[in-house]
Structure formats: C-alpha cells, structure tokens
C-alpha cells in the first residue's frame, strides 16, 4: 500500500517538476524579450527600426552602433556625467529610503507610545495619496523657493517613503521578537545601537528587496527630474536618453535604444548584487544568523 502511494507521489513530483520548468522557462523568455529587442535595436539604424521594429540582426551592426554613438555626441549626451548624477541621486535616495523607513517602522513596531496608532494610520493614509496630488504642489514649491537644479531635491524626499515603512513594519511584525531586543537591553546596549546592530541585520531580506525597488524607481524617474533639473550638468541618464526623442519629426530610434541599454546596465548590476539576498533563500531571521 504505502509503496504504491509513495511511487505515485514521486510520479506527481516529476510531473510537477516538468510543469515548473516549462512555465518558468516560458516566463524567462518573455522576460528577456524586451531586453533582447533593446540590445539588438541599439545596433540598428533609426530607419531600419522605423521600418521594422522587431528583427534579429542588423545589416551593419557595428557601423550602426558607431553611428548611434555618434548621435549621442552630437546631442550633448554625456554618459559619464549622467551616470554620476543618476548614481548620486539613486544611491542617496535608496539609502535614505531604506534606512529611515526601517527606523520609522521600528519605532512603530517596537515601542509603545501614545500617538503610535495615529501615526501609523497617518502613514497608511499618506501612502494612498496619488502621486499626482503632491506633484502640482511640489513643483510650485520648489520653483518658488528657487531650489531647482539641486540633486538633493530628488534625494531628501526619500526619507519619508510611506510604502517602504509599511513594508518594513509588516515585515517586522512577522519576524521581530522583542525577546532579542530585551536581552540586548539587559546587556546594556543603547536603543539606537540595538537598532543598528541587531534589528537592521535582521531585516536584511526586506532591506534588500526594498533597496532594489527604490533604486530602480529612483534611477528610472524622468518627469520630476526633467522639471526640477534644468541645468544640463545636473541631467540624469534617463533625461539624456529622453533628449534623443527630440521632436516627433526626427526621432533617433537607434540611439534611443542604445541609450536605454546603457541606462539599464547599471541597474542590472545593482540588481544582480542585491538579488542574492532574495535568491539565496537562506533564512536570515533571528533564528539563524
């Protein structure tokens, strides 16, 4: 009896495995498709792309790549400057975002204070405010105060990131045990130190995921920097790629794809680095350290 059921379990295991692989491989191909298109189109000329957007190989890939690159230079495209600005903004914003969100979430989860629930409710509410609502007022304020062309205007708002706080709080509620905190207190550790040395390591998987999301969102934002950074020395990479859009009559598609490819590469690197926390699959909770 039992041997029969065991073999049927094994068989269903095998079927499941095949299903998993088929579905996963299908989604992987789907995923890679836009990247493939982007990199291939970077080696094609604008005219080729206009005539046929999806294709495998260009007639003259190297030549076109050079031409597309030349268009950059003609259009004031400075990958190094753009990269540096994007890097400063995204890195700064991401660090502030995850650190202060963790801190705020910890304040809500670990301490009993009078306005805690009110504060938490407010954060929830803020999260639900549509971005468009803040947009109109924010631009007006920045312009009024003459704070345009300051990278910090794109970095500092990350301190108050309600979505991340919400995630961190949810995560802490599921994983944080106050016993660990208590025992650290007994050892004489200060509250701030407990947060930095015990709670933050505990939150690694959460921090890694939110850092990725934050980095990607910050790196890719276009509309806000376009309006706030008018000095081209402050331009970010996506802004520079956007320049290639020019006007509708003369769009340099080949260069746009090349620009997009260049823009996306650093993200892939950051992602590859941070994703190990998601991928490794080891429990990083308080139990195993």
């Amino acid at each position, binding site marked *: 009896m039992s041997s029969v059921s065991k073999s049927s379990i094994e068989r269903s295991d095998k079927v499941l495995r095949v299903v998993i692989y088929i579905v996963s491989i299908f989604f*992987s191909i789907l995923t890679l498709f836009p990247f493939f298109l982007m990199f291939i189109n970077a080696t094609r000329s604008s005219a080729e792309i206009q005539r046929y957007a999806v294709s495998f190989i260009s007639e003259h890939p190297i030549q076109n790549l050079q031409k597309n690159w030349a268009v950059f230079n003609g259009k004031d495209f400075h990958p190094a400057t753009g990269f540096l600005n994007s890097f400063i903004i995204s890195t700064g914003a991401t660090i502030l975002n995850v650190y202060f969100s963790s801190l705020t979430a910890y304040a809500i989860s670990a301490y009993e204070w009078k306005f805690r629930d009110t504060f938490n409710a407010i954060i929830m509410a803020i999260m639900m405010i549509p*971005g468009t609502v803040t947009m109109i007022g924010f631009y007006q304020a920045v312009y009024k105060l003459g704070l345009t062309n300051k990278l910090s205007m794109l970095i500092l708002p990350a301190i108050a990131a309600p979505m991340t706080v919400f995630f961190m709080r949810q995560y802490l509620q599921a994983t944080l045990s106050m016993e660990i905190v208590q025992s650290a207190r007994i050892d004489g550790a200060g509250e701030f130190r407990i947060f930095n040395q015990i709670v933050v390591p505990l939150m690694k998987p959460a921090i890694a995921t939110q850092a990725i999301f934050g980095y990607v969102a910050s790196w890719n934002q276009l509309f806000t920097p376009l309006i706030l950074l008018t000095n081209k020395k402050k331009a970010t990479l996506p802004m520079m790629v956007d320049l290639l859009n020019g006007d509708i009559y003369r769009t340099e598609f080949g260069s746009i794809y090349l620009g997009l490819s260049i823009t996306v590469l650093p993200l892939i690197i950051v992602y590859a680095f941070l994703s190990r926390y998601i991928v490794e699959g080891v429990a990083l909770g308080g139990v195993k350290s």
Partner: protein
Amino acid sequence: MRNKKLVNYAKYGYLFSIPFIVAFCIFTLYPVIYTFVIGFTDLKGLANTDWSILPFKDPKTGEAWYIFKNFKEVLTSQTFAKAFRNTWIIWIMNFIPQITFGLLFTAWFTDRRSKVKGQGLFKILFYMPNIITAATIAMLFNVMFQFPKGPINDLMGGIAKLFGHQREPYQYLLKEWPVKSIIAFIQFFQWYGHTMVNLIAGVIGISPEIFEAAEIDGANRVQTFFRITIPCIRQILLFVLVTALIGGLNMFDVPQQFINTQANNAGLTTNMYIRNQAFSGSYLYNRAAAASVVLFLVIVFFSMILFFIMRDKDEARLKKLRKQELKAAKKGF
C-alpha cells in the same frame, strides 16, 4: 538593573519617527494641502495668480454648495466616469493573473522539498521587466501591435499563411477590449516578478523551524503552503494587496505611452484624466485637484476594506484584552 527597566522607552518611538515626520511635512504635507485647497478654488490657466476660494453660494444663482463646484463637475463628467471604469477593469484584468503567478512562483521557489534547479536564475529573471521603464515597454508594445504592418500582424499573417489561410491585418489599437487587454498584460508582465520578490522576502523571514515541524507532522506541499506559508506571510500579503491596489488605481505611464486617449479613451485611466486636466490645454488645476481628492478617497475606502478583511483577528483580540486590563487596573487604583 532596576533602573534600566524603568526607562521610558516611549520617547524612542517619538525620536526615531522624527526624520520621517520632518521630511514628510516638507515634501508631502505642504504640497498635499496645497492641492487639496486648490480643489475648492477657481485656479485655472497658466501662471494665474489671481485666484480665490469659491464662495459657498453661487454668486449668480444663489445656489448653495457652490464651493463643491469642481467636485460636482468631476463626478458628473462622463469622461471621468469612463476613466474610472477603465481603471478598475484594467486593474482587475492585470491583478488576478499577477497575484496568481506571484503566489505560484513563490510556492514553487520556496518549497523546501522540490528544490527546483536554476530557481535562483528564474527569481532574478522574473523581476527584470520591472527594471525597464514602463514608458519604454509600453512604447515597444505599441509598435508591435501596429496596423497594418506591425510585427504582430505580420506574425499572425505568416502563421495563417502556413495553414493556407489569408488573414487580414487586425486593428488592435482601435478596439476597446484588445487595447484594455494589452495594457493589462503589460502591467502584469511588469509586476508579477515584483509581487513574487515581495512574497519571497516574506517567506524567507519565516523561521525554518516552522517548516521543519510541518514536515515532521507529514504535511504535504499544498497543505504547507496554505496552512503555514500563507498565514505566516499574511502581513506581507496585505502589503502586496494594498500596494497593488494603490499602484493600480494610480496607473499612468503604461496606458499613457501605449494608447493615450486614442480608441475613444479605451485606455484612459483616472490618473491620466487628472494630468490631462492639469497639464494640457486649459490648465484646469482646480478640477484636477478635485479629481485627485476623489481618487484619494476611493483608494482609502477600498484599502480600508482590505485592511478589515486581512486584519489580524488574534492581535485585535489581544489589544482589546490589554485595554480592558489597563482600564481594570486604573479602576483598581
């Protein structure tokens, strides 16, 4: 030792929240109040400095509640109604597969027994569509579905030819349902990996001992997932649901780049409606602000429902108990 225990930890709660509160007041609160106020004014037109809050009564007809004029205009506008309906339809069309596949992949890739080979690679790949800007992907899809010579039409024509049929190219971008479906698909394509990553982060946070115990008790995979994993990641699941709802109702980039207002607004969302009002043509800031407030209230309403459904019943009971105890203690004194 005794002293330590008496330390009032509450002050750290305030202390640690200060940076958030300060940044929030400067970068969010002020703009939000500004926008909310505008909803009750006659501010329209570019660089208009001569605007004021609407009077309570219509100065012409004497009708009451004139101050809500912008809101009335929004709520009676057919275009807004359509945008609102579209947003929900597209969101549901994208969210159901998104959460299904998100959960499915989470179950597969966190299952301790059937260690899927190459799962690390899959996990990395599935999030990748989220890296490219939404506008870019939407643009790519728009080009692909062009009529009469877009890649998809060519491909379908080629397949039809293989089977000896003649297929007329199809106007995907003029039909309501194809437009909505493609937008929903793009949204799904970009976000299922994101959902999966969030959920997996939640599962990783679960103590392995719980799984070990379940295994020893002889729970099968399905049981483990539904009885152990899901309840343990309920908090994260709530996060996923709420953020998906908020993100979905704020949908903008994809439909904007993919179709804009074409096909008789088949892909128009509420957020697009708001921006159309505010940043193009007549600069109807007041109406855009009113519409934003409406959108905000809708999001709050539905989020509340989610919070209620997903609430931690045990925790709520505990809280109640504690409050009662406190009260009793106070009475005792």
